[in-house]
């Protein structure tokens, strides 16, 4: 399976994603510089975390106009798998591939910490390796992870099981105390209607090796690879 990792000016989790996919998961991985838009031959694109364009103006707002993004949109529209992590998620909402918007954290501060997440939907190609309702632990590291979506759109998202991960307690309770950043309904990750574009704020690539303290993130990459083999 061939993964492409998009590199925008200011991306800084590109190496981490590359490392996990290449050296931990043993996949074929290439970097794609944002000015080189050839996406032929890729099976899954990863928009990594970081501070594309310094996160100036609004997070993801400038990267969304990068030359490669038109191709990413058509890649997604043709059913290609797209995974947006952290800043990648922000770029996906700015570009309209995913609904909603990521605002500044409710405490107005950057937060780097491990959080518990409840797997709300394990029937996606990205999450099939998790059990339904399973609580996993992944790190977050963001200043703008406060997911917002208005009432009707939220209802629509809920209706189609678009919410994939929510912030929860270790016991799986999706409560305000477990919400690190003020996201609506504790939402941490969502998927598009077609089921091929996932965006999440937590960093699965930082929890894919035991030496780093956890491997819950690895399951997400494993799911993508196994799903691809089956298809």
């Amino acid at each position: 399976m061939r993964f492409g990792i998009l590199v925008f000016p200011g991306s800084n989790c590109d190496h981490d994603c590359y490392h996990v996919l290449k050296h931990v998961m043993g996949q074929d991985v290439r970097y794609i510089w944002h000015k080189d838009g050839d996406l032929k031959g890729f099976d899954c694109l990863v928009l990594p975390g970081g501070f594309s364009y310094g996160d100036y103006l609004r997070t993801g707002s400038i990267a969304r106009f990068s030359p490669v993004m038109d191709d990413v949109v058509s890649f997604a529209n043709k059913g290609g798998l797209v995974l947006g992590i952290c800043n990648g998620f922000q770029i996906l909402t700015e570009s309209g591939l995913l609904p909603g918007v990521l605002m500044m954290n409710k405490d107005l501060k950057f937060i780097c910490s491990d959080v518990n997440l409840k797997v709300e939907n394990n029937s996606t190609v990205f999450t099939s390796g998790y059990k339904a309702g399973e609580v996993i632990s992944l790190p977050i590291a963001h200043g703008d992870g406060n997911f917002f979506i208005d009432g009707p759109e939220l209802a629509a998202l809920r209706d189609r099981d678009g919410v994939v991960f929510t912030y929860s307690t270790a016991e799986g309770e999706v409560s305000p105390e477990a919400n690190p950043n003020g996201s609506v309904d504790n939402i941490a990750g969502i998927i598009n209607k077609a089921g091929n574009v996932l965006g999440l704020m937590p960093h699965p690539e930082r929890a894919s090796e035991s030496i780093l303290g956890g491997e819950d993130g690895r399951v997400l990459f494993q799911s993508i690879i196994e799903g691809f083999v089956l298809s």
Partner: protein
Amino acid sequence: MEITAELVAEHGLSTDEYERVVKELGREPNYVELGIFSVMWSEHCSYKSSRVHLKGFPTTGPQVIEGPGENAGVVDIGEGLACVFKMESHNHPSFIEPYQGAATGVGGIMRDIFTMGARPVANLNSLFFGTFQHKKTPYLIDGVVAGIAGYGNCMGVPTVGGALYLNDSYSGNCLVNVMTAGIVKTDKIFKGTATGTGNPIIYVGSKTGRDGIHGATMASDVFGEGGEERRPTVQVGDPFTEKLLLEACLELFKTDYIVGIQDMGAAGLTSSSVEMASRGGAGIEIDMDRIPRREEGMTSYELLLSESQERMLIVAKQGMEDKVKAIFTKWDLDCEVVGKVIKEETVRILEGGQIVADIPVTILTESAPQYDRPAEKPAWQDTVQALDMGSVPAPDDYNEVLLRLLASPNISSRESIYSQFDFMVRSDTVVSPGSDAAVVRIKGTNRSIALTVDCNPLHCYLDPRAGASAAVAEAARNLVVSGARPLALTDCLNFGNPERPEIMWQFREAIAGIKASCHALNVPVIGGNVSLYNETRGEGIYPTPSIGMLGLIEDNSLITRQWFQEAGHVIALLGSTRPGLGGTEYLRSIHGLEQGVAPKVNLEEEKSLHKACLEVIKTGIILSAHDCSEGGLAVALAEAALNPTGPVGVDVDLGVTPNLRSDELLFAETHGRIILSLTENNLSILEGICAAHGVPLQVIGRTVEHGFAVKGLINTSLKSLESAFRDSLSPLIRGEATP
């Protein structure tokens, strides 16, 4: 412009120094040249008050690839790799504009590292502020922390560790010391050297603005339009541009297009070109008309002295100009050929085809003044060391004392600070902030580096020599308990006004202390910086020699953390507690006394302790190891109990020692002590190793399911320890609690 006595004074040069300029130059300098002298002969660039004292640091060893003198020191970490690291201060700018001051400090130190060819992999910081009694403290902490986070996070370099210390002496002068470590292949280290007559000098990065041009210019220069606006002396950081600069430089380093590269840091273009020429034994000619600039009407004087951030100076090989340009253009960065290397060892500045400055390099460097300033022990030194233990009442309730200590801003959890730093990016952080040292793995190997920053300013105030010696010993101990062998250190020597003999005495004493520990523990100094004049209204800061140290772990399975793991393990104390409460956090925060004789490190014992600890960790039987420092044994035990993944109970008996008071037993800050945990069946291995090294070993108790008990003295719940430790700092910084 005529060079008047006032103008010379505004440039920070004394009459004697100016006469020296004229004598060396053989003529009067012009205005541009005066500007160049003012920065090159400043304390910051010339180390004129400190240089004579910095000689004699051990700077060599089989592991040292590059000692002091380059942008940063370099040590070998095996498998063809080296670690480049350095610590630097950004004190004054951070006090004026905390966010930008701290941010540009972080940006500057990272440039020092990647200019050597290394990719930065870890940042640390050592921060000193006034207490929360001072209204400005929360504002300063908040801004400095946000600035460090803003820059480091955006760069994608994890901030993995640090230190925070509060004391009234910093209320008018906060200290922001920042450290970066980077990894480079040993055969790909780059230096800031200008060689090869005719080689082009290339300017890359941001455009030059009027940032940070020193106060003298502001006073003497004629303001252009908008003269009502004070020109900025504080630089604004642009981490996004620096990230591009980093990636572009690393791409450049894979090629063989260049011969040298140098960061434009403090004193900008001037010091970077002088330093490159000086190291290369060559000269440099720069044409000001070609310098990329942000503002109209900038003079040569301004272009040379500007401290605009995110800029580099490169000496390329002839004919490689376009190839170098192609790389920087890809990353949307300015890149201009601005001059060339010349044979004559001089710095020659051209403007409009005319020479506007021409100064032989050695005059700027070697001929800079050097002072052996008078030093005298302060009259109050003996007074502060006097402590009548009879006047220190023994507390009735040690539970309460322990909780108050854990809640002290100098001890309590720093999570509310480090959670603002992305400490995990690059996915190499094996031991996150909160343990004795941070541990960062090296991908592609089974090795890790361990990093720590240390200094106890109260100990340094009471006895600068003992305090500085202890800072080195404690840094080494923090590495050792993490399973790392100390390799080298970098220091940031923060002191008051060196023109006052008592400050100079503190400085000399501290240096003697560092040297003693470095020699004894075999840890060379490979770089650092000196920050003097940290003084407001005649009140100097406590002497603050911050030590940043690097260690190596050659087998990742030996990485050790400070926390007890589960109930049923044996707790052992290595080293012994000595009488004396001088300089303890206990005396300071419970009895309000900053007094007494600071604990001294016994270097021979310390050395044996480190050997024994590393040896026993190597056997694989050690489950946790923690250094005893601020707050003493009781606090160290509590810290070890408060495992972030869930607290572990403690039941210990410290016994009765005839010459120790209970508060000494619990809270004395005797150096050379380590708390270990292990299973009982492995105890004999530990005993054997300790006996072989002559290290005192005492089994003091066990880890249990619930509670924290020290027989006859303390009995409290883990929950109360936890809330005292974890919930105290954040409300103070937010201004929601009163100290």
